[in-house]
């Protein structure tokens, strides 16, 4: 009988391996791989970033679940919006999100991303992240402890494995909506000045 974090590991892995349906075998395989390997952009957008280092280091060791940090958006699968999000940060988050390659997922921490939280009447923070970027998973708490974040990741992994986590497709489908909201906050000459490339896709190499 394992004790301590070894036992916890077992519980979490058991949760991961639940069966899923409505996918063909290739998709299933792909999603299984995606689920097993999650690269999280090391980008602290708000106060909740303080909880991320313990999550990824020795105490909580997210790597045992295949979750590890990535420095650049090009390599990341998940971006964590950790708490309140000022306009200034939003601009960066949007750019980073658009630079990540599909499939990509967004994990939002804390109540501030849901409804503004304690910044509900702030003049320079957004209230509802959903209006600007699609969110795959919310993790509640102010701030969520690393356990909660791990919980959130596991839930995300589960959704990925089942093929349900498809916010990136939602973003592409409803781009005008998101774009309008973004421009409403960030102004007409909203950065990024380039257009989302898949939107005007011209073919690859």
């Amino acid at each position, binding site marked *: 009988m394992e004790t301590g974090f070894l036992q916890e590991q077992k519980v979490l892995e058991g949760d991961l391996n639940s069966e899923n349906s409505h996918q063909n075998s290739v998709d299933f395989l792909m999603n299984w791989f995606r689920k097993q390997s999650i690269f999280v952009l090391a980008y602290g957008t708000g106060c909740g970033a303080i909880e991320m280092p313990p999550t990824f280091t020795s105490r909580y060791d997210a790597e045992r679940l295949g979750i590890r940090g990535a420095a650049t958006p090009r390599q990341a699968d998940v971006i964590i919006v950790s708490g309140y999000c000022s306009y200034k940060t939003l601009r*960066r988050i949007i750019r980073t999100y658009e*630079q990540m390659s599909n499939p990509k997922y967004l994990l939002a921490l804390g109540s501030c991303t849901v409804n503004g939280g304690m910044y509900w009447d702030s003049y320079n923070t957004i209230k509802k992240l959903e209006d600007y970027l699609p969110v795959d998973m919310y993790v509640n708490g102010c701030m969520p402890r690393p356990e909660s974040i791990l919980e959130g990741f596991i839930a995300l992994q589960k959704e990925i494995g089942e093929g349900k986590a498809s916010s990136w497709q939602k973003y592409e489908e409803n781009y005008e909506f998101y774009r309008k909201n973004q421009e409403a906050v960030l102004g007409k000459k909203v950065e990024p*000045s380039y257009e989302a490339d898949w939107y005007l896709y011209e073919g690859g190499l």
Partner: protein
Amino acid sequence: MEFSLYGLSDIVLSLKVTALANFFALLIVLSTLTVLFIAPNYRLKRSFYLLFTLLVASLFLIVYAHDYLLFFIGWEVMSISTYFLLSFTLSKEALHKYILFAMASALSLFVAILLLYSTQHSFLYEDAKQSYLAMSDGVQQLFTLFMLIAIFIKLGTIGFHYWLVDAYEESHNLFTPFLSAMLSKMGLYALILFVANITQATYVLAVMGLLTTIIATFKAIEQESIKRLLAYSSIAQLGYIVTVLSVADGMGGALYHALIHTLVKLLLFINIAGVIYVTQKEKLSDLGGLIYKLPQSFVFLLIGIIVLAGMPPLGGFASKFMIYTALLDAKYLLLLAGVMFSSASAFIYVYKLIYGIYLGHPTHKNLEEVKEVPWTFLAPQYLLASLLVIIGTFPGLVIPYINRILGELNLTLLSFETIQTLITSYAQYNGFVVMGAFGGIFVLVLMMFMLLRSKAKKPKNRFDIAYCAEEPNEATHLHYGYSMGQELKRVGLIHLIAKNSSKYFYDFLAKQMQYFSEVVRKIYSGNLLLNFNIAVLFLIILLLWSLK
């Protein structure tokens, strides 16, 4: 063909067709043709062509001369015609620097050959060895000193390279390829003659060669001007040859590398000439991002730098391999390590070169509007690049020719089996297999890679890069690598190389010379009284001296 000069029966001169001479003559023909190919792009005066013809003629004279007097005459004519060719573009200071070194080279060669003549009364190459042996020890050293100074100045060996870099940088773009490919080779030819005919000044060559390769490489890394960078690279490459000539069986490697270096420097300088022709910019910091504007040029420069860095599978590796095994054979292990070290350091400037010009971001608006260089620039590059690829694939191809030269010089022949392989006592190398394997693997990997499901999409503009979530724009400084290598100066040993320059020495020398002149010309003070006194003093001294 033997004849005498100046109606003096005691001087026998001779022109002779030898395999060595043919080898260099071939290089001259190749360089001349390729360089003339790009000439129509420039508006040049007729006198330029006249002088160029004179230069080429003098090169042929140097190569086919079979005695040191004709050789010297060719050498001087080469220096002077080069002077006037350089005068079309060089600044006054650079020009003066060039000619002073050229004259110093010519005059020390003159002294050397006269010393040679003084014992056996012959300038012929065949008698050189005997003449040398007939000298006393001190004169032998003096002779070697003068001869090597002459050669080193032409080669631009470190310490004697002060003129070379400026001359290369400021010379006409048409002329730089020739300067690097041919004129420095004449120094090499002199060195080969010296080593083969007279004596192998082992330690001097080894030390100078090694210092040259290492110092020039690190100097090249510092440069921001393309032509300066390539000039230092030329110096370093010739340093390899000087090093390898210090060992007994190094001649094969030296000749091989001379061939490769000629081809690659022609290729690189013509490429650079093309880039400068279309962009009018000569600094790495003013260029950048040209890869999609000048794709063909990019590929040729790529081939050039692969050869320059000595990377397999192209010809550069074959010659480096010959050099390494020659040094290994002679058990000059630390020397070999030093040469390999500088060869590894060369990657930096090689990358800096291609990055600064073709990769990264364009630094000026008008760089985004340039077109591919004219075909007159591309055609010689096609020729040279294909030659380099062929030599890389069949590295044994030139061995029979080199063997013919070696046989003529009574040196150990290189072993030769098939044209695909290079065989030395330590190892063999099959260029065909390496090239084939690389090509095959590359194609297979590429095909499999392209079959992958993942779409490769292209960003809409060049500012879409991962930049710490910031949005760069026109004003952002994105072209970074052209100043590559600056941080190396923080390393103590390299700082030592970067900080010091022969410039300080020569400036010091010039200043002292001027002071000296200032003192000496006080004699001509215009004061008759003083001078009469001096004259009488002279008379008295003479009297005392003769009465002693």
